[in-house]
């Protein structure tokens, strides 16, 4: 089933954003001086993962840096306990709210740790080249080789199951089911990012082409979601699972996932049309609100019900590369490619 964005059926891009509500004066700026690749919260502390070596703990009046890697930080994942980072130094490092660190793994061949993901009961997954590693909460380590380099990892919301995106499809792996052959979801092409819907019914990948691919897991039915102007690099479900928000277009594209068929046969909702392209999306942890970062540095909060917008950050010098919500949804951390960023209190 094909679903395609039909351009221009919403507001025009000449929409006068100057009249929108603004909270730009409630943003405390930070300076990371390296590309920001992740924006998370540990307890109430905003933590920015910098593209090189360090994490920036940005408590008001008390900014401090914690070195994590001796090189580039390639991917990051976080839960309430810690931030886990993979580096080009071949290490997987977990950093907690106090800044204390644990080396989860050191790759034997010092390969880049391209991807990390956090799973249930303290499980951590990472990948180097074609190999995916999982360390269970009990500290047992398991590995699985994919047919090509691993391009994305995501744990299922229920059970202990990991989706591994690669060329020509996704492998679904139960790391604790020793001997059982992993399930393969096949679709020609290079699959990059991967995400489960919150109810676990759907799996969606971002592709090398400007499109998404999806599967309904119950019957393997395919979904193609296209119409983007660029490769989709960020996707995120709303808290209630009703919409999948995506980057890659000059507006936020939200695919409806409420019905049993997901977006099949439905039009996506298009919000916040802009002259610049959406680079990052982050859905509010409770409300039907999505934060969108743009290539021109602007950040908007958009209410999905009526498309109402609040300007959080004006266009700046560099693309927005990371957005992260505090667990209570009162604070948004913003990071950009040039290391600039901020913390917005709503």
């Amino acid at each position: 089933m094909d679903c395609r964005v039909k351009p221009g059926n919403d507001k025009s891009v000449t929409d006068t954003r100057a009249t929108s509500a603004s909270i730009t004066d409630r943003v405390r700026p930070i300076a990371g001086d390296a590309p920001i690749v992740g924006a998370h919260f540990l307890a109430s502390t905003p933590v920015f993962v910098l593209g090189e070596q360090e994490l920036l703990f940005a408590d008001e009046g008390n900014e401090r840096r914690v070195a994590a890697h001796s090189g580039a930080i390639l991917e990051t994942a976080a839960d309430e306990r810690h931030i886990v980072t993979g580096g080009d130094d071949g290490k997987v490092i977990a950093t907690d709210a106090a800044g204390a660190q644990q080396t989860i793994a050191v790759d034997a061949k010092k390969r880049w740790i391209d991807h990390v993901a956090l799973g249930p009961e303290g499980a951590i997954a990472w990948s180097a080249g074609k190999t995916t590693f999982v360390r269970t909460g009990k500290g047992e380590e398991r590995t699985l080789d994919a047919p090509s380099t691993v391009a994305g990892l995501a744990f299922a919301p229920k059970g202990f199951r990991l989706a591994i995106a690669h060329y020509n499809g996704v492998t679904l792996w139960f790391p604790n089911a020793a001997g059982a052959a992993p399930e393969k979801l096949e679709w020609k092409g290079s699959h990059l990012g991967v995400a489960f819907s919150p109810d676990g019914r759907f799996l969606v990948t971002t592709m090398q082409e400007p499109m998404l691919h999806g599967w309904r897991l119950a019957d393997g039915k395919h979904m193609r979601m296209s119409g983007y102007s660029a490769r989709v690099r960020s996707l995120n479900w709303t808290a209630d699972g009703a919409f999948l928000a995506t980057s890659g277009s000059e507006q936020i594209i939200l695919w409806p996932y409420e019905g049993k068929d997901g977006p099949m046969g439905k039009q996506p909702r298009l919000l916040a049309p802009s002259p610049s392209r959406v680079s990052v999306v982050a859905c509010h942890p409770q409300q039907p609100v999505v934060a969108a970062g743009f290539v021109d540095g602007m950040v908007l909060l958009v209410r999905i019900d009526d498309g109402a917008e609040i300007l959080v950050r004006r266009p700046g010098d560099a693309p927005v590369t990371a957005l992260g919500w505090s667990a209570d949804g009162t604070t948004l951390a913003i990071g950009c490619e040039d290391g600039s960023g901020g913390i917005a209190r709503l």
Partner: protein
Amino acid sequence: MTAQPDKIPVTVLTGYLGAGKTTLLNRILSEPHGKKFAVIVNEFGEIGIDNELVVNADEEVFEMNNGCICCTVRGDLVRIIDGLMRRKGKFDAIIVETTGLADPAPVAQTFFVDEQVGAKTKLDAVVTVADAKWLKDRLKDAPEAKNQIAFADVIIINKTDLVTPDELADVEARIRAINPYARLHRTERAKVQIDEVLGRNAFDLDRILDIEPQFLHEDNHGHHHHDHDHHRDHGNGHDHDSHGRGLKHYHDEDMQSVALRTDKALSPDKFFPWVQDLVAKEGPNILRCKGILSFKDDPQRFVFQGVHMILDGDHQRPWKDGEARDSRIVFIGRNLPEDKIRQGFEACAA
């Protein structure tokens, strides 16, 4: 891909097994140029590379889902360049060394197809190292070797000390039969001036100034003293008739170039549909193409280039007073239907 000074230049180093790619790479890295490089090598590389930032690649060639079988990209390059950009400022340029059996096209196409890669980096040139002694044999038995020669912007004929001057002239003529447009350098132990290899801007639309066959400008006087200074300026009054013992002329049976020229102004409404249809049908066989075009009633020169089915073009600059408003296009490829291309091109006249 127009010039943007903040884009990191990427040089692609190809060449058949044993031709001397790694020797050239180490020579580039060890020159006292003060530049820092990020080097992407294939994971089966055996010889040590003396550089701080070396990344192993697996040469994963991915087909794109756009209905075009020749539209392939190097998936590993997309990933690695994304990762390297986290360390922007730590290096000035990237060198990608391919395996001896690699086709350069997917590497080049990655820079056209992936928006993120194209936004951060620019393809500088494809540099092919050829073995003076063995290239002739490889051109017969290894299609990869022929692709690498056909695709190149710069060709280093290495190990010239292992062949006689006649053998060298012969291998040069065979290279010219496939690719008359690349810059050619003769070396021992890959000793070449670094600025003949790096900073070529061969894929920069602004630099498509001259698509004359290069051998018109080269030093072919038969005194092949090594490490001589190659001219940095072309067409500097050389006596083109004095080709020493004379350059042999070969016709390669399956890889050729087709060069066309017309002084009639072209119609853009005829040219673009024609060239798009041509690359759609012949794209798998067309390795590269370039052109400088004069459209009717258009005060600007239009330039374009392509790799297989991917075309990239833009207005370059106004035609100068007194400049001959010729349109010239060049295709390098396999079994090209020259007559059909010629007729099609001529039919694009306004």
